[in-house]
């Protein structure tokens, strides 16, 4: 269980998060939605322990995040970051193996190798393990990072997985695949929290959606409850038509054209 209580975070006088409370159970995939600058990444960085909230507490498995050591935290949660610049030309296999670093001292055990093999297959990068990371396309790099992050907590029950825009540069196949993996992990008991930009992807996969605006929690609920044309207008200031997928009964959105006053 992850519980965030009245988190407030600010840089200087500018507050980025105000009084945010929510919780995530094992087995749940929570998607965070919000406009640019709403505080999604900041919230995620607070949850990961990278940033310390000014007020409020974040509890993971009954203990506050800050009371865990860096090492302990690495055994409980993994983070897929938005920006991943690798400074040396490591091979794909080497990068994925780094996900297992917290678990072994000098030489990877049989389990470590097995897990690396498994996540490599799952993320569809099996045929590029020997390639050098910098030569990969943005989307391929993102899948390698996903594999590394999955490897880190693969065999840890009820682990926390945080993802900051994990599908940003992926094609539609791997967008679906990544979210399917996330959902699947949640079914295995993980707590998965992902920041997304694509409302339809969120509607398709999220168990719950947290909507942020100006650093505050605006809505929190199931996709059906939260994703309405009215709410989307409130958050993104965009009109949209809502339809229902006749097969899955899930909503999907088509934005209406935005009129722009011609620039003088």
């Amino acid at each position, binding site marked *: 269980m992850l519980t965030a209580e009245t988190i407030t975070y600010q840089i200087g006088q500018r507050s980025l998060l105000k009084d945010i409370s929510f919780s995530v159970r094992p087995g749940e995939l929570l998607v965070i939605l919000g406009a640019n600058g709403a505080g999604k990444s900041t919230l995620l960085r607070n949850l*990961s322990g*990278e940033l310390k909230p000014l007020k409020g507490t974040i509890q993971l498995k009954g203990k506050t995040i800050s009371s865990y050591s*860096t*090492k*302990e*935290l*690495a*055994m409980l*949660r*993994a*983070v897929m*970051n938005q*920006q*991943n*610049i*690798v*400074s*040396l*030309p*490591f*091979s794909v296999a*080497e*990068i994925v193996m*780094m*996900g297992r*670093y*917290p678990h072994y001292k000098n030489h990877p055990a049989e389990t470590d190798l097995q897990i690396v093999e498994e996540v490599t297959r799952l993320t569809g990068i099996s045929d590029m393990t020997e390639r050098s990371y910098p030569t990969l396309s943005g989307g391929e790099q993102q899948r390698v990072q996903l594999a590394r992050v999955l490897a*880190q907590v693969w065999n840890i029950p009820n682990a926390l997985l945080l993802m900051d825009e994990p599908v940003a540069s992926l094609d539609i196949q791997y967008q679906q695949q990544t979210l399917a993996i996330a959902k699947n992990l949640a079914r295995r008991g993980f707590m998965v929290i992902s920041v997304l930009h694509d409302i339809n992807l969120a509607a398709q996969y999220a168990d719950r959606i947290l909507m942020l605006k100006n650093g505050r929690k605006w809505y929190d609920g199931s996709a059906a409850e939260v994703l309405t044309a009215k709410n989307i207008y409130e958050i993104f200031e965009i009109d949209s038509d809502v339809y229902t997928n006749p097969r899955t009964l899930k909503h999907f959105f088509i934005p209406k054209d935005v009129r722009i006053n011609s620039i003088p």
Partner: protein
Amino acid sequence: MYIFLVAALFIAAAFSMSLGAVKIPVKEIFLILGKKAGLFTQYTVSERYEGVLHIVRIPRVLLGLLVGAALGISGTAIQGIFRNPLAEPSLIGISAGASLMAVIIIVMEISLFAGLSNLLGYYLLVFGAFAGAGLAALLVYQISRTEGKSNVATMLLAGIAINALAGALTGLITFAADDQQLRNITFWMLGSLAGATWETVLSILPFILVPLALLPRMGKALNTFALGEVQASQLGLKVNSVKRNIVILATMAVGASVAVSGIIGFVGLLVPHTIRLIIGVDHKHVLPASALLGALMLTLADLLCRTLIAPVELPIGVITALLGTPLFLYILIKDKKKFAL
């Protein structure tokens, strides 16, 4: 790979002991060394050879090995910390910081600590150089960081500034120096192993053996640094303390090298780069391999500068710079876009 490097190192060391103003046959060297270890007692060896070997060649080769290993491994470590393949101790001012402190101590030592015994004096010198290297590293690091990342352009510019500042201060100090000190100071600026004695070897031994023993254990840590500091911390690394330890170890090695051999540039650039081309970038292997290759490269470079235009000796810094600058330019041109200078 390791076997090859170690073998090459032995051969180079043997050659380096053999060649010079007095040529000593390699067989003789083995006999003399063997005799010291209590073997081959039935053979007699030339006393002249033994003298040259003991007083001149062995300390010189040992010094080359130590300094080369130190520069090689610390180059790798510092590039890992800065997340940047151009972070070389002499380029970014770490060596200059060390040499500035060394020069200050040379000038002060005679006036203030005239009574210090020789080995103690050397220790003081090494400590001073270590402090100077550490300060310079800290300064460059702080200056070149923006939002948790080190910026290449700022790093190199900060290096230029520190090099210039240290150069200017050194120049200033030379006014207060007497002839003997002046000669010592000039020697710092060029870099040379000519000051090799058993005392210099012993004085830097601990300061180089400790980093050589500990840095290779930082392989996993430096690998995760390549992912980014945030990512490294998410993988359970105590980023700040690890970073501090690595910088202390690396600057200790650089400081000790500079204290006895002056600024020998570009070894910390050449060595890690060559190793990465051959065996890949995993620090678990790059760290120990760059210590070995550093030792090998400096032994060979020293051999060259002793024998190329004998009896005159070239400063070793000249050779390493001749090899290193083209590589530096090559990296710069190849990654021009990435560095966006």
